[in-house]
């Protein structure tokens, strides 16, 4: 039998197709991680490091350099430089992670592909979403992110927003008024807004001691409230006024054009306004179709999406139960997810999930406090099983040690994440 050219091509194509399945099965499994923040970078690094090259890990992050939200308040208070908050991905790349500086714009869960803003497509066996937060449109009357974030910054995603707020604070007229619109629950970093107030107050005692600070809070209660209010009285007596829902904080409108805030009919003339809006999972989680309401529900044992078994959602974007939305939590969750993903893709040992969180806050010079808890799966959610908190009236040496501990934690977690 004579093989003509056409037959030959047809045969080889058919053979190629027949070989495709076993060839794919032997190929390295692919993990794509969207979001190079604390959850995503930790997860990518741990999978790459622990699988020792057996898994192909790609991290997609829009920014070439990451700025941590934690400790960004300390920059506002002049305790840290902005540079000290920034971390590159070079070491992560050396660990074997392919770092792609691009924005993920789409997820096709049937085809198991991710589309990037550049038009490229990445295929995955397991997808990790760690997109952090976005803001709920319309959650603060009168404030639209795209139009007003340069006038009334949120500074709740660290980066240019953080430096903008610092510039505004430094330029505030003598005796001026700083107003913070605090966010409703749940939001990233429960003590964060109140640490920020402490740090702004510290800055003002140095550069603008007659300045006034007003916190308009839709919540009746906030984390470490007793500790913060005690610290504010001790360090910044008379400077800070916290206003809760008893005084109409559920009915607030901001006016960026005139820098006024309407508090239930009472007009407040402000010089700097920090609007921290209501929050939701980073938009890509919604685009991927793994959210219910504002957040992405996950299984408590491995952070796997309750909607798609090939997707894990980490950190602030996830609805997992009792853990606060914090960098510490995201780092803790990322390690559990990394272990589970390696187990599924390479058969490595999988141990029971353990989670923990600690949040340190700085009240003033050498005056650090902390709150923390441990968590376990109860089958339905990640449940709090024990907690601790600093006490009002602790001596100065303990508070100083707590602050130094927080510096050690920052050095530790950033080296754990970025290598």
């Amino acid at each position, binding site marked *: 039998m004579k093989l003509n050219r056409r037959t030959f091509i047809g045969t080889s194509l058919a053979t190629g197709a027949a070989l495709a399945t076993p060839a794919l099965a032997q190929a390295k499994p692919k993990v794509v991680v969207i979001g190079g923040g604390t959850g995503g970078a930790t997860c990518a690094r*741990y999978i790459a490091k622990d699988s020792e090259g057996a898994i192909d890990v790609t991290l997609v992050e829009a920014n070439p350099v990451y700025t941590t939200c934690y400790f960004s308040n300390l920059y506002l208070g002049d305790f840290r430089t902005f540079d000290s908050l920034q971390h590159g991905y070079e070491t992560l790349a050396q660990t074997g992670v392919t770092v792609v500086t691009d924005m993920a714009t789409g997820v096709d869960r049937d085809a198991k592909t991710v589309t990037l803003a550049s038009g490229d497509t990445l295929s995955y066996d397991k997808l990790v979403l760690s997109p952090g937060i976005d803001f709920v449109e319309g959650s603060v009357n009168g404030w639209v992110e795209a139009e007003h974030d340069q006038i009334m910054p949120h500074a709740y995603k660290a980066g240019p927003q953080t430096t903008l707020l610092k510039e505004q604070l430094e330029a505030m007229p003598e005796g001026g008024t700083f107003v913070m619109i605090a966010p409703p*629950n*749940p939001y990233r970093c*429960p003590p964060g807004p109140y640490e920020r107030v402490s740090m702004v107050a510290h800055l003002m005692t140095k550069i603008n001691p007659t300045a006034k600070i007003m916190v308009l809070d839709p*919540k009746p*209660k*906030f*984390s*470490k409230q007793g500790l913060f209010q005690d610290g504010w009285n001790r360090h910044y007596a008379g400077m800070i006024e916290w206003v809760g829902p008893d005084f109409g904080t559920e009915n607030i409108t901001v006016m960026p054009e005139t820098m006024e805030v309407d508090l239930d009919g009472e007009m407040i003339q402000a010089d700097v306004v920090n609007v921290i809006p209501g929050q939701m999972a980073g938009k890509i989680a919604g685009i991927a179709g793994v959210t219910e309401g504002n957040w992405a529900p996950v299984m408590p044992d491995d952070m796997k999406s309750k909607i798609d078994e090939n997707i894990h959602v980490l950190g602030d974007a996830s609805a997992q*139960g*009792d*853990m*606060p*939305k914090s960098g*510490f939590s995201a*780092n*803790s969750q990322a*390690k559990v997810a990394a*272990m589970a993903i390696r187990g599924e893709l390479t058969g490595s*040992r*999988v*141990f*029971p*999930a*353990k989670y*923990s*969180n*600690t*949040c340190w806050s700085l009240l003033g010079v050498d005056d650090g406090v*902390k*709150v*923390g*808890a*441990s968590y*376990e*799966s*109860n*089958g339905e959610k990640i*449940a*709090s*099983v*024990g*907690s*601790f*908190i600093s006490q009002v009236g602790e001596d100065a040496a303990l508070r100083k040690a707590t602050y*130094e*501990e*927080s*510096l*050690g*934690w920052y*050095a*530790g*977690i950033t*080296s*754990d994440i970025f290598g």
Partner: protein
Amino acid sequence: MMPMARKTICAAVCAAVFAAAPFATPATAAEIGDPEIGAKVFKKECSKCHQVGEEARHRIGPILNGIFGRGAGAHDDFKYSKGMQRMSADGLTWTLETLDAYITNPRALVSGTRMSFKGLKDDEERFGVLAYLRGYSDDPQNIPEAEPTALSSAVHVPPEVLEIIGDAEFGEYLSSECTTCHQADGSDEGIPSIVSWPEEDFVVAMHAYKQELRPHPVMQMMAGRLNDEEIAALAAYYATLD
């Protein structure tokens, strides 16, 4: 050759026993109770005097919203018995343990309380009520210091702990929690290095935290939920680093 052979056998047996352990005893936190059972019991036994929920008001007894983590007798707008006021001054705080004791037998915990209730002796009913009430207190997601919502699975295994041969591979996994604060390269900035400690010192220190003899709350929390094998595994792993 003898000592080495013996050690090898022991290590092999220990590893085999331990390999199965994580799957045999998954770390699943226990529910406080069934809140649905609790809702029914609350309606029948408690609701004549107490209200809970958005529309709740003080009745014969005070509102029970937010009771977990709150001090006894803390509502300014409710007139408590002298007994409850005394407990308030003594610093009684409502936790799972103290509320459980109070609901089991009110007068046993607070002499002279006006809560004229015989007590709920049935465990399922009582834990159900506690679970139901927990749902009306602070959410730890928003207030991380809030009272726990479940009971830890942490097991306390008795002595001979220094005999346990640690599983360094497991220790490496567990160490991912430690590296959040204690740097793997032994750097020491505000948080001490835990690299290349003698294994025994490591084990003893961790048990001292677990028993709350050493005072640091983060370490008490971390050590408190590690079992003896896990502590030994961590000690074995950290001893290998330099």
